[in-house]
């Protein structure tokens, strides 16, 4: 695994865009020749003077590079990516980052909020199995890639902050935040926690880990 990061710069093109919900979409980019990455890593996407880093959602052997993007109200690049014509050229650099799946004897527990699901989708596409995954979102419609990751997970829980408890037949739905699930439902033990999402989630989960899950490992990546 030595030398997993690279500072290469590449040119690419927008090949497709699929809306996943009201404000979130997936874009597919032409994969530059020779571009390699490890699931969990990201790329910097540039258009003019704008540059942002996104974690790849595609698998390491996929023909195209895919990103899951949330269109933010004041997000200049995310808004541009939401509207660019298919075929438009973009500059990429990377791969960047060290948020990699590092299996040990401890059971892996992935925790994502919103588009923080991206690295875990890439890991699943690369063959990751035997993990538990808590995905926090406002509503079920925001649980992007659910069927794909649910099929690979030993335990999948959609933690919904704005929905009532799941109906019979939907035991995977939990009414509350991922932190509520950790505090109230998960039995104490030692896990390898992988956290990806907003800072407040990471801060709160780390605090719970120190209190309830001593001896666990914690890896995290924070999204803006």
């Amino acid at each position, binding site marked *: 695994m030595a030398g997993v990061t690279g500072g290469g710069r590449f040119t690419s093109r927008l090949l497709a865009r699929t809306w996943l919900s009201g404000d979130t979409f997936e874009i597919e980019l032409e994969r530059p020749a020779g571009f390699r990455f490890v699931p969990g890593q990201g790329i910097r996407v540039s258009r003019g003077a704008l540059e942002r880093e996104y974690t790849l959602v595609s698998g390491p052997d996929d023909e195209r590079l895919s990103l899951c993007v949330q269109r933010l109200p004041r997000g200049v690049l995310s808004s541009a990516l939401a509207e660019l014509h298919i075929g438009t050229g973009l500059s990429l650099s990377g791969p960047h980052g060290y948020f990699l799946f590092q299996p040990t004897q401890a059971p892996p527990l992935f925790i994502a909020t919103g588009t923080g699901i991206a690295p875990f989708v890439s890991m699943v596409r690369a063959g990751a199995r035997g993990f538990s995954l808590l995905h926090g979102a406002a509503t079920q419609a925001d649980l992007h890639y659910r069927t794909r990751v649910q099929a690979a997970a030993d335990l999948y829980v959609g933690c919904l902050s704005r929905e009532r408890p799941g109906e019979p037949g939907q035991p995977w739905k939990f009414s509350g935040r991922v932190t509520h699930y950790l505090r109230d439902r998960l039995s104490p033990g030692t896990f390898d926690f992988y956290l990806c999402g907003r800072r407040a989630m*990471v*801060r709160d989960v780390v605090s719970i880990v120190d209190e309830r899950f001593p001896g666990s490992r914690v890896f995290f990546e924070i999204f803006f």
Partner: protein
Amino acid sequence: MKAYTGGGDGGMTSLLSGERVAKTHCRVEACGEVDELSCVVGALIASLPKEDRGLRDELLETQGELFRLGAILAATRGSHASGMFPKFGPEPTRRLEELTDRLEEQLPPLQGFVFPGGHPTAAWAHLARAVARRAERRVVQCFQESAEGRPDAAFGDMIPYLNRLSSFLFAVARFCNSILGVPERTWPG
């Protein structure tokens, strides 16, 4: 990536290999010393005469080596994270030895203990030299304590590197005073 999380407000932090440890853990202490060393080397670089690109480039390379060293210190032996970075071999140490030899060839022989100071650039180099010594002590301590039960082979080439780095920075301090026309003051004893 955000610069802070708040996840360490309880006095714990995560190593690169994921373990939650106290902020007084020897690996965290050693990383902190190496970070401080890089900061002082940065101040030294910032104070160098603009025309001295050779020394600037060498010190910038040193900062890169210190980042690598910090990353290796932050990952426990045998962890996946410890394999993410190229091994810290003997080459950086040899580079420092050659650089130190080249600088010393241009300097008058030592007449005694040198007072740290002189030109501000030399003063930064002296400070960096002292911080390098402290970083070395912390890394040695971490190596000896070996929180994981036995010595970590990854430390092997880091200790000689930090040892040579302080010698190199001492030579840089003397060299800077020499080229900037500030006489060296020695302790009469």
